[in-house]
C-alpha cells in the first residue's frame, strides 16, 4: 500500500466513523465501507465480497435508544484493512469476518467515550446559546462529529502502521481448523442480528407473515425482489381487508380483532 492509498483509507475510516453516529448516508455499513476500502486499495471486488458477508451479519444492528448494537463501522473498516494486508484474497474472508466481531465490540466502547465527551460539549453549547452565538454552536457540532470520525480513523491508521508482512506472519500462525471454524461461525452469527430485529417487531399479528416468508424462501427461483414484492402485497392486502371487514374498533390494538369476517361468523356460533 502506498502513501496515497493509506491516506484514502484513513479518509474512508473517518467517514465511516462520522456515519456510525449520524446514520444518514450509511458509509458505516459494511457494504459501503468495505467496498470503499477495497476501491482505494485496488482490491475492489475483494472489498465488495467482504462487505456483502459482513452486511448479512450486521443487518439487524441499529442505533436505538438504550439498546447497544455492535459497532459496524470499526468492524468493517478494520477487517477490510486486515484482509487487504493479509494478501489472502477471497480465501481470507472467513477469517476477516471472524476478526470483525471482537472489533465490533471494541468499537462500542469507543462510541461510549465520545458520547461522554459530547455531554461536556453540550454544556459549552449552553453557554454559547446564552450569548446567542450560533457560530460557536455550529463549530462545536462539527468538532463533535469529527471526534466520531477520529474514533474509527485513528484505529485504522494504527492498523496501517503494522507492516503487511507482520500481518501475514500473524495470520499464518492461525491453523486451518480455526479459520474454517470461524467461517462456519460467521455464517451462523447472522442469526443474532435477525433475532434482535424479531424481538423488537414481533407480535401475534405478524408471526404468520414470518412463516409465509420462511416457507416461500425455500423456492430458490424467487429473487429477493420478488419476495419483497410478495411481502409488501400481503401487508397491503391485510391492512385494506382489515379496514373493510373489521366491524369497527379492530385496528386499535395489535392482538385482538383480526378483522376476519370468517372469524366473526365462527365467533357468533
Amino acid at each position, binding site marked *: 500500500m502506498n502513501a496515497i492509498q493509506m491516506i484514502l483509507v484513513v479518509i474512508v475510516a473517518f467517514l465511516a466513523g462520522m456515519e456510525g453516529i449520524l446514520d444518514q448516508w450509511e458509509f458505516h455499513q459494511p457494504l459501503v465501507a468495505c467496498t470503499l476500502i477495497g476501491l482505494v486499495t485496488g482490491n475492489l471486488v475483494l472489498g465488495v*465480497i467482504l462487505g456483502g458477508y459482513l452486511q448479512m451479519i450486521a443487518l439487524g444492528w441499529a442505533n436505538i435508544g438504550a439498546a447497544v448494537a455492535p459497532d459496524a463501522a470499526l468492524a468493517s473498516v478494520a477487517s477490510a484493512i486486515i484482509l487487504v494486508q493479509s494478501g489472502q484474497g477471497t480465501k481470507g474472508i472467513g477469517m476477516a469476518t471472524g476478526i470483525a466481531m471482537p472489533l465490533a465490540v471494541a468499537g462500542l466502547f469507543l462510541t461510549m467515550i465520545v458520547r461522554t465527551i459530547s455531554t461536556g460539549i453540550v454544556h459549552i453549547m449552553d453557554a454559547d446559546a446564552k450569548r446567542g452565538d*450560533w457560530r460557536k454552536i455550529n463549530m462545536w457540532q462539527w468538532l463533535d462529529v469529527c471526534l466520531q470520525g477520529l474514533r474509527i480513523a485513528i484505529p485504522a491508521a494504527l492498523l496501517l502502521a503494522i507492516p503487511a508482512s507482520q500481518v501475514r506472519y500473524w495470520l499464518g500462525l492461525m491453523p486451518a481448523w*480455526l479459520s474454517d*471454524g470461524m467461517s462456519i461461525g460467521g455464517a451462523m452469527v447472522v442469526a443474532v442480528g*435477525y433475532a434482535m430485529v424479531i424481538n423488537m417487531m414481533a407480535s401475534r399479528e405478524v408471526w404468520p*407473515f414470518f412463516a409465509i416468508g420462511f416457507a416461500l424462501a425455500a423456492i430458490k427461483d424467487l429473487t429477493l425482489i420478488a419476495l419483497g414484492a410478495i411481502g409488501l402485497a400481503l401487508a397491503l392486502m391485510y391492512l385494506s381487508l382489515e379496514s373493510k371487514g373489521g366491524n369497527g374498533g379492530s385496528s386499535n390494538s395489535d392482538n385482538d380483532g383480526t378483522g376476519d369476517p370468517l372469524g366473526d361468523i365462527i365467533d357468533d356460533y
Partner: protein
Amino acid sequence: MADKKIKLTKADRFKVMWHSQFLQASWNYERMQNGGYAYSLIPALRKLYPKKEDMAAALQRHLVFFNVHPYLVSPILGVTLALEEDKANGAKVEDEAIQGVKVGMMGPLAGVGDPVFWYTVRPIVGALGASMAIQGNVLGPILFFVIWNVIRLAFMWYTQEFGYKAGSAITNDMSGGLLQKVTRGASMMGMFVLGSLIERWVNIKFTPIVSKTPVQKGGYIDWGSLPAGAKGIQQALIDQANGLSLTKFKVTTLQNNLDSLIPGLAGLLLTFLCMWLLKKKVSPILIIIAIFIVGVVLHVLHVL
C-alpha cells in the same frame, strides 16, 4: 397570513433539512440530540431573529432534551419552523407551546422510525445489495447506497415540508390511525422478509454422513468405459446432465435429510434460541462470541 414580514423560503427550509443530517453529531447521554436540534434550526433562526437576545432565547429554547429517530425528526422540524416563523412575526406563541409540540411528536414518531427504517427498509435493501455483493458484483453496494439515500432524502424533505405546511395542526393527525397503520404494515412486511432471510442466509450445514448406498449399475457414470480424451469428458458431462451419479455410492449427509424435511430448519432454531437468550437479557456480544466458539468446536469435531 399575508402580512408576514419574515418568511422562510424554500432555500431556508432546504438548509434546515441539510443541517438536520447532523442531528446526532453531538449525541450525548444527558440530553441526547439537543445540540443537533438547535444546530438544525440555526439557518432558519438566523433569518427569523436578527436581534441577538431573540437568537439567544431561541437557541436556549431548543437546547433541551430531545430524542427521536434521525429521519423522523423532519416532520417535527417542519412544525417547529412554522411555529417559530409565527413567533418571529409577532404572533403569540408561548415557549411551552413549541416545547409541547416537540415532546408530543417525539414519542409516537420515534416508535415509527425504528421498525420502518432500521428493521424493514435497511434489512431489505441491505440484503438485496449484500446478496449481489457476495458474488463479487459491484452493483450490490452501489444499489444499496443509491436506493437508501434516495428514499432517505426524499422522506426527510417531504415530511419536513408537510410538517411546515400543516403547522401545529399536525398534532391532531398524530393520534390518528395512519401512523399506526404504517408501523404495523412495516412490521408485517419486515417479518415476512426476515422469515425469508433466515431461510436463505443463516447457513448451518451438518456434515455427518447418514447413509452410503451403492447406486445401481447404469445409474452412475462408468468411468472405466468412457472413450479417451476430450470425447470422454464430453460423454461424462452428458451423462451427468442426464442425472447419472458421479460415484458408485450415493452419499446422504445429515443435512440432506434435514433439507428434505424443512430447509433452513437449523437456522430457524438457532434464531429462536438467540431470541430467547436476548429476552433473558444475555448480551448480544456474548451470544456472538459463543456462536463463534461453538462453530469452531463443532467443526473440529466434524459435525459442521
